[in-house]
């Protein structure tokens, strides 16, 4: 059966990349003694997938991983089992059974993600020295029918409109943070950092150093107007 695990990735774990987190969980699952499902072949490893790879430098309180198990105890017991052996920064929050099959895989169903971007002190100073009101600038930006950014990839150099990918954006705690709901997943996806750079440009600010810290708050599945957190698609065991 397929289990969806929700966990945090905070503190110094922000320096650990996506593939290394996979490796971390493979070892954690082995240590836990859980009855996990393995891939076939000469080097079998636990079958796991992580919903939406988190970039280095970004923290999260809502990461999702699907893992195949042959059997397991109650959700509460399994959360306790996994958390008693954890490094600082990873905490399992929920452990729920989800429907089997590729189409319901956490990687496949992601449609949006919510982030909080918190400005660094130097950015805050920059914003206040220019007497900018973030909420006004945001609304002003979102009122545009399109937000064109230059997209530079190895292969091409072109413009892209990110406006349709921004579902929500509002300031929180006055000057210090912006909360964002952005399209995510394989079809259409907007990196929160890309949005923030576009916003800084809109404000006429050139970001220096590490201008903001991004923290993921939730990952969703479903249509834009009916988003549901990934773990709400499962049941406690």
């Amino acid at each position, binding site marked *: 059966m397929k289990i969806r695990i929700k966990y945090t990735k905070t*503190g*110094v774990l922000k320096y*650990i990349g996506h593939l*290394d987190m996979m490796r971390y969980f*493979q070892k954690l699952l082995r240590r836990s003694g859980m009855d996990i499902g393995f891939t076939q072949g000469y*080097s079998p*490893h636990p079958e796991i997938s992580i919903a939406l790879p988190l970039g280095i430098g970004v923290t999260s309180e809502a990461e999702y991983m699907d893992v195949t198990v042959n059997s397991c105890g109650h959700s509460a017991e399994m959360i306790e089992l996994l958390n008693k052996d954890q490094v600082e920064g990873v905490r399992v929050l929920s452990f729920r059974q989800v429907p089997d099959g590729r189409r319901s895989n956490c990687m496949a169903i992601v449609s949006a993600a919510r982030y909080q971007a918190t400005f660094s002190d130097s950015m805050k100073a920059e914003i206040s020295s220019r007497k900018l009101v973030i909420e006004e600038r945001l609304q002003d930006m979102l009122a545009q029918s399109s937000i064109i950014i230059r997209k530079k990839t190895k292969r091409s150099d072109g413009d892209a409109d990110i406006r349709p990918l921004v579902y929500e954006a509002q300031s929180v705690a006055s000057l210090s943070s912006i909360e964002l709901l952005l399209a995510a997943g394989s079809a259409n996806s907007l990196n929160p950092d890309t949005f923030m750079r576009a916003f800084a440009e809109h404000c006429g600010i050139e970001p220096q150093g*590490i201008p903001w810290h991004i923290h993921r708050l939730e990952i969703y599945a479903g249509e834009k107007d009916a988003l549901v957190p990934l773990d709400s698609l499962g049941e406690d065991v």
Partner: protein
Amino acid sequence: MANRKTALPEEVLLSVEKPARYIGAEYNSVMKNAAEVKVRFVMCFPDVYEIGMSYLGIQIIYDMLNKRPDVWCERVYSPWPDLDRVLREKKLPLFSLESQEPVKRADILGFTLQYEMCYTNVLQVLDLSGIPLRSNDRTEADPIVIGGGPCTYNPEPVAPFFDLFYIGEAETQMNSLVDLLEECRAEGIGRTGFLRRAARIPGMYVPAFYEPAYNADGTLAAFSPVYDDIPGTIKRQVVSNDDISDVPFPERPVVPYIQVTQDRVVLEIMRGCIRGCRFCQAGMIYRPLREKSFEVLLKNAETMLKNTGYDEVSLSSLSSSDYSGIKPLIDGLIDFCGSHKVNIALPSLRIDAFSLDVMKKIQDVKKSSLTFAPEGGTQRIRNVINKGLTEEDIMGGALQAFKGGWNRVKLYFMLGLPTETEEDMRGIAELSERIAVLYYRNMPPDKRKGRIQITASASFFVPKPFTPFQWAVMEEPDEYLRRAYYVKDAMREQHNRKSMSFSYHDADATILEGVMARGDRRVADVIENAYRAGSIFDAWSDYLDYGRWMKVFEDAGVDVGFYTTRQRGLDELFPWDFIDIGVSKSFLRREWARALAGEVTPNCREGCSGCGAAVLGGDCCP
């Protein structure tokens, strides 16, 4: 949740390659309260994290010291050149991974010296830590800088940079050294007083207390202690054969987040080697053979796998096929690992019916290759180096393997061996050819799985202290490449050349390694100057600047040839002769003579050749 601090600010960590090298916090890493310990020990492998974390020795010391409530052992590795630059620019001190505090705060900074080309990295770590490079410039504010590992069997080229070397295995005397430091602290005794007392602990060598004298021709005339109460000879300290199974092993090895070179549980099955290959330093300095019991090893493997979650276990030894419990050990491992979906990696197994059968069980034949290390291309040169492997062994093993479905063969050779002739070089190509012919003759086309792939590779031989080849003369720099090209050309002349490939190691490092390996204290200035001129990560061919090194030698007036191409006298006093490894110089001399005569010496199980290490009590010693 406690919020872990990092020594480096976020903008630095996010600007360097692989920040996970510098944050610590790995699973099983040990955190302690600094205020509650008496001695803070920082252990350094002077190379990048991924290399250093793969080394079992540090895991052993880390485990052993951290079991003591009064000691906190932490780790530090060489910052990669990208971070090295930032640390210098921003004047940030190098820090240990666990506490993220400056290395300089440690009471003891221990380096493991696994290869000569890491010497400039030792200076890098000292320098970035704000510790004076030379022992005699250090004060009470600096840690005691100690060294261990195979390179300390000739510590002289780096002697001025160390306060102390420990010649031997950590389990035997490391704890006494830490105890002594605590005693000295309690009595208010400082560095010099501590070192005076430390020099009397067996295996401890304090270079400042020994003085070399040189002959007019530059060779060593005498090497003696400056005080009467310290020994003139340093005796290597080892765990006895009786204790080897009970020696503590790291039950909870630190598990890195990022992929490191040896990313698996490493099971040390024995120490020492019975073979006596004449080029091999490890084969001499780790004598005698001491085997752990397979029952203990199976338990250890299980414990380590459970405590780490690793999906692979590997055997570590100099020649695993010689381990007398290899069959029950492997059967036991296959049993446990099969049911727990853990892979088994078996390096250094001799190819024979048993190992092929095992390999078939544990790995995908299609994806794996056979490895032979004939080291020399002809039987003559293999006799010179005392490599027991014969052509029949290779052909017999290869034929069985072909019938078992293998069609990839790796062959390891050395070039630049003493007495080597063009025939020996050509032998590399001809042996490769004979293996290809063996395949095509014995495998009918319908049974072949494609063309055979033979990959031969050669490294260049560097004479090492405490080997029968310590008297050997090295070649001129250009000669190494000439020999490699010679083999390459010979490969091209073979009928089955399309089935073979040949590669060779970096030749530049060979000369430098040769100088450092058999160097004396006068080489230290060169190493320091090379570091000051910008040399670090010399073990990485991308970073090694051979031209810069040569210029430094020239400027310092140190003659490379004195250390590499000079004919050493049979009775010459060597800079490392003050160390007693157990194996006697007269045995080595005898072996050198037998080598030149092409005579093979039996291995320790076939018969004792009286090397001298029997005093240390080995498994097969009389």
